[in-house]
């Protein structure tokens, strides 16, 4: 069978022009299939929607935002130094609006960085945080919310109600977007999942959780502004890097390194897709 498969695939490669992101193939009807009564699938989501506003109005994310602001402004890091020299892309020390302009190319490091990667970079460089410590616990848990998570929450909140505008000028920014787009669609692992398995169609859910179609601007914004977000399960702040990490866990992939190029590329793809939309985060999530 192995050989046959190989031949078929080779044949396929020769005879077909492989359109990337072609439409989903028509689903084959099971034998003697008659569609079961369609479920009223929006009922649960509608009930959640009614209370989203209440939850968003008083979002415990604000507690972490305040903590992050304190660390950023008041020399609360290990070295007692200031973030005044940290350039998030809009000039040294400028926080307002910086979040919605990342990922972007930073000449000082010669690479594209997403917001979280840049913030951590600055906290190591200017405040004296240890990279090893941050990598030891990159994400919050019930016992501890690392400082960088609070700072990212603050930086994100400083772009609230602003339009997303991740740049696509530098060749490396364009490269990151295009590679991110490919990672998004790449199916592998024991379950054959890609990011698109859950986030490639409109109106889908896992259990009761709505899944935005990340190929569309008005849906990509929903994912973008969810994180950093206050996670009700457990009750702590989680970031975009965490969201990507845990998606890959559930995709049954091995683990992406924290702040790696692959995650920056995915975030570039998602953010650029959401460009022009208004950021309403930080979020509050299930």
């Amino acid at each position, binding site marked *: 069978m192995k050989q046959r498969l190989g031949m078929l695939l080779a044949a396929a490669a020769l005879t077909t022009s492989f359109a990337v992101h072609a439409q989903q193939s028509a689903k084959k009807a099971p034998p003697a299939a008659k569609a079961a009564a369609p479920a009223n699938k929006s009922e649960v989501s509608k009930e959640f929607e009614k209370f989203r506003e209440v939850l968003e109005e*008083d979002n*415990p994310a604000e*507690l972490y935002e*305040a903590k992050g602001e304190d660390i950023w402004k008041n020399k609360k890091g290990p070295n007692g130094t200031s973030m005044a020299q940290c350039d998030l892309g809009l000039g040294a020390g400028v926080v307002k609006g910086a979040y919605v302009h990342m990922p972007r190319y930073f000449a000082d490091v010669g690479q594209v960085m997403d917001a979280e990667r840049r913030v951590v970079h600055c906290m190591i460089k200017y405040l004296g945080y240890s990279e090893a410590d941050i990598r030891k616990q990159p994400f919050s848990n*019930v*016992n501890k919310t690392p400082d960088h998570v609070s700072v990212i929450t603050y930086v994100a909140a400083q772009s609230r109600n602003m339009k997303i505008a991740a740049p696509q000028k530098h060749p490396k920014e364009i490269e990151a977007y295009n590679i991110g787009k490919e990672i998004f669609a790449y199916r592998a692992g024991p379950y054959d999942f890609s990011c698109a398995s859950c986030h490639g169609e409109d109106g889908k859910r896992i259990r009761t959780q709505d899944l935005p179609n990340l190929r569309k601007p008005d849906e990509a914004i929903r994912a973008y502004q969810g994180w950093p977000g206050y996670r009700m399960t457990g*009750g702590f702040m989680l970031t975009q890097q965490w969201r990507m990490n845990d998606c890959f866990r559930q995709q049954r992939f091995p683990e992406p390194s924290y702040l790696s190029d692959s995650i920056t590329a995915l975030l570039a793809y998602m953010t650029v897709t959401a460009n022009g939309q208004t950021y309403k985060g930080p979020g509050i999530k299930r």
Partner: protein
Amino acid sequence: MADPMKIRAQMKGDTAEIRVLMSHPMETGQRKDNAGNTVPAHYIQSITVDVGGKRVIQGQTATSVSRNPVFGFRVKGAKAGDKVVIHWEDNKGDKRTDEATIAA
């Protein structure tokens, strides 16, 4: 030491709307940590709200209140500029007091 509360207070007509976010684990005493040990109960037990120097609300709470609690109250007859002082104490004796001014 406990982190600061976040208090919002604003007049709507003759009524002040007060919202408060508190930073607290609200441990039930039933959760187990990764090592399998029970995490001791740790929760806010009492809350008071003073507006313009008068005690308007006093309450007691327990572990059925969510982690990082959120409360909302309304106080009639308060005025813009009045001081809102909120205080909590938990079962371990930790406490925190924060204040805000009612916005017009």
